[in-house]
């Protein structure tokens, strides 16, 4: 399908906005100023002031001299941008992809491919936008063309028609001045100096010639306007493919009512997902309250899922976090992340349960929804000897261990996170302890195995190796004890208790 773009140009965005706030300024000359290098520069001009010859970039003092009754207002950096993105969000009603005009920050670019017919054609579409914005108090110029660049050019410099038909944009650009291509000021000066007053006079020149004189950037702008190069718009709000809205006739306050709303929206959403073979991975429920507050709660699933009952249970755990206040008037349920769902083959006989058991996956979703995903841990063996690092956290429920769990080396059933220092009596050089004192209690070693020397991973941390002994005291309790490093004459050797065997 042919792409179509709309460029909306707000001729006096800040001035219009100021008049909306202070209607008494309507028709009066006023300017916005910002400090710049120790002087005040004009950043926005009202139509009345423009007529008097005041321009953007002029000094405030000069402007006042030209027009004695001039009202000078303080601007704020980023105000135009904020205002534009607000209007841009409103414009999402016309097209899903709305982008700020990043070149001049005084307009919007809309990707309207496949949208205009809903308003009965492009002419009606344009009329609707213009009249609606005008009724709000904004003076705009619009153009529709095949490329964002051409639409931008025609909106600002076009003299004949704002509606450029499909494939006609190159013709429409011919007579426009080079400013319409969004070049930089230096390039523009060069073009003027060389006598290029219309795009057609250099449009068909060899690229190598243009590149040598005006640079790569200018060529890109030209190609973007002509449509040989793609221009990517960065939308203000990414359109969410799967979403449901539920406006309420009466504001909703009770838990039961919220539950009904969620269930209703989930049913519609899951039907939509099911039809496309997709499953929800994360869901966001946004509640618009009567007093203007917006609340949102989100859920996540460990695997793509489109079962209403399961998703409903996940949302049910979150209802406590929603404070309805005076009442909620609009619910929006979105699925920002969806994945293709794996439909398991129905089995005639009950299969053997395992890690991919459905009820287990649902349990994991519920626990991570209520308590948090960080509490859920699964371990796979790692190819390392250092006890603390001999297990790895599995990244997902589907991760299979690469190798077998080790069974030839004894490892304690309970491992202390931090080894506890113990006092030991042992024969040198490497006999197991005769006795050790742990928590003030003396344990006489009856049986012992070892030592098992485990070297420290020197590329990770420095320190002594460990010589581990498995010891059993006279009561039958079994411990894992190690000596840190070798015996030495000077230094005190240190012993630690690191775990308990079953």
């Amino acid at each position, binding site marked *: 399908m042919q792409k179509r773009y709309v460029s909306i140009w707000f001729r006096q965005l800040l001035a219009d906005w100021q008049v909306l706030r202070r209607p008494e300024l309507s028709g009066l000359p006023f300017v916005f100023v910002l400090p710049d290098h120790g002087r005040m520069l004009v950043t926005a001009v009202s139509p009345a002031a423009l007529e008097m010859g005041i321009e953007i970039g002029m000094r405030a003092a000069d402007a006042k001299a030209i027009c004695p009754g001039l009202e000078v207002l303080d601007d704020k950096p980023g105000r135009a941008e904020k205002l534009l993105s607000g209007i841009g969000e409103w414009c999402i009603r016309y097209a899903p992809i709305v982008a700020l005009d990043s070149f001049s920050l005084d307009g919007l670019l809309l990707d309207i491919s496949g949208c205009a017919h809903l308003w009965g054609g492009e002419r009606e579409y344009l009329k609707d936008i213009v009249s609606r914005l005008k009724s709000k108090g904004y003076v705009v110029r619009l153009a529709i063309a095949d490329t964002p660049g051409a639409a931008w050019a025609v909106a600002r410099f076009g003299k004949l028609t704002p509606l450029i038909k499909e494939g006609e944009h190159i013709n429409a650009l011919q007579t426009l001045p080079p400013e319409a291509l969004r070049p930089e000021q230096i390039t523009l000066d060069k073009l003027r100096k060389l006598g290029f007053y219309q795009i057609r006079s250099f449009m068909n020149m060899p690229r190598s010639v243009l590149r040598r004189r005006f640079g790569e950037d200018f060529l890109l702008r030209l190609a973007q306007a002509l449509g040989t190069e793609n221009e990517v718009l960065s939308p203000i709000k990414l359109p969410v493919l799967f979403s449901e809205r539920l406006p309420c006739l009466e504001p909703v306050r009770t838990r039961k009512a919220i539950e009904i709303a969620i269930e209703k929206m989930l049913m519609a959403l899951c039907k939509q997902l099911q039809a496309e073979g997709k499953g929800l991975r994360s869901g966001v429920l946004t509640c618009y309250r009567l007093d203007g507050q917006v609340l949102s709660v989100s859920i996540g699933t460990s695997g793509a899922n489109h079962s209403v009952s399961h998703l409903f249970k996940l949302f049910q755990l979150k209802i406590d976090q929603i404070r309805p206040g005076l009442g909620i008037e609009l619910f929006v349920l979105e699925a920002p992340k969806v994945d293709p769902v794996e439909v398991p083959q129905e089995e005639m006989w009950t299969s053997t349960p395992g890690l991919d058991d459905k009820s287990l996956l649902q349990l994991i979703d519920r626990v991570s929804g209520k308590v948090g995903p960080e509490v859920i841990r699964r371990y796979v063996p790692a190819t390392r000897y250092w006890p603390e690092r001999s297990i790895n956290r599995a990244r997902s429920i589907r991760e299979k261990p690469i190798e*077998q769990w080790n069974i030839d080396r004894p490892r*304690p*059933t309970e491992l202390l996170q931090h080894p506890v220092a113990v006092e030991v009596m042992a024969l040198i050089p490497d006999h197991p302890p005769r006795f050790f004192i742990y928590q003030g209690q003396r344990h006489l070693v009856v049986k012992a195995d070892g030592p098992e020397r485990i070297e420290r991973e020197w590329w990770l941390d420095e320190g002594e190796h460990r010589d581990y002994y*498995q010891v059993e005291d006279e009561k039958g309790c*079994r411990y894992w004890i190690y000596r840190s490093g070798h015996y030495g004459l000077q230094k005190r050797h240190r012993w630690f208790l690191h775990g308990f065997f079953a």
Partner: protein
Amino acid sequence: MWQGVKPQSAAESERIGLGEIEAAFPNGIFPRKAIHEFVSTSPEHSAASDGFIGALLSILMENGAACVWVSTSRRLFPASLGAFNVEADRIIFMDAASEKDVLWITEEALKCEGLAAVVSELGSLSLIESRRLQLTVEQSGVTGFILRKDANKTASNVATARWQITPLPSGNEEGMPGLGFPRWQVELLKVRSGSPGSWMMQWSGDRFEEFVLEQKKIIAWPDEDRKVV
């Protein structure tokens, strides 16, 4: 008969490999749809309980099912479970911050029919809490193990069995140095409609073995006499 207890027939469930101990349960079968409570007082004893449960899990998880281990301060070292024939990657650990969360997760996990067992480390378990868990277990058929590491806080609850596992000197063959197979004094302090008792068990790498010294069954094994073994 107690309310909610359905006798299992010998045909429908397999033996768990506990030998003589199974005879202590009603009908001589280890109850799978039940809550088993393990009490311990010291870390050495709780390690023994962990080991004993690990050995039971190896049989319960034989069909490939997964297990959930819930706790607030877990010390179980997954790499050690290989000694009990358990593939630790099939255990999902949930390390919650509070006892309340542990209870909630335990109840939710016990509802999952696809699980082999749920092990939950709790400080205390009240009558009402245990009753809820028992009712859930009867619905789903998942075996629940409650590991109470603080046995001093005793409260009556409706667990089907209360166990106490204490370590015994390991068994190695005559004249061999070092440590042998782990041995435990397995005490059934309470069994609903069964007969409590005390046994000495050894885990021989792949199965339980009852080992005999002088007497086969000793009730109330005094602590001081243990060094006779």
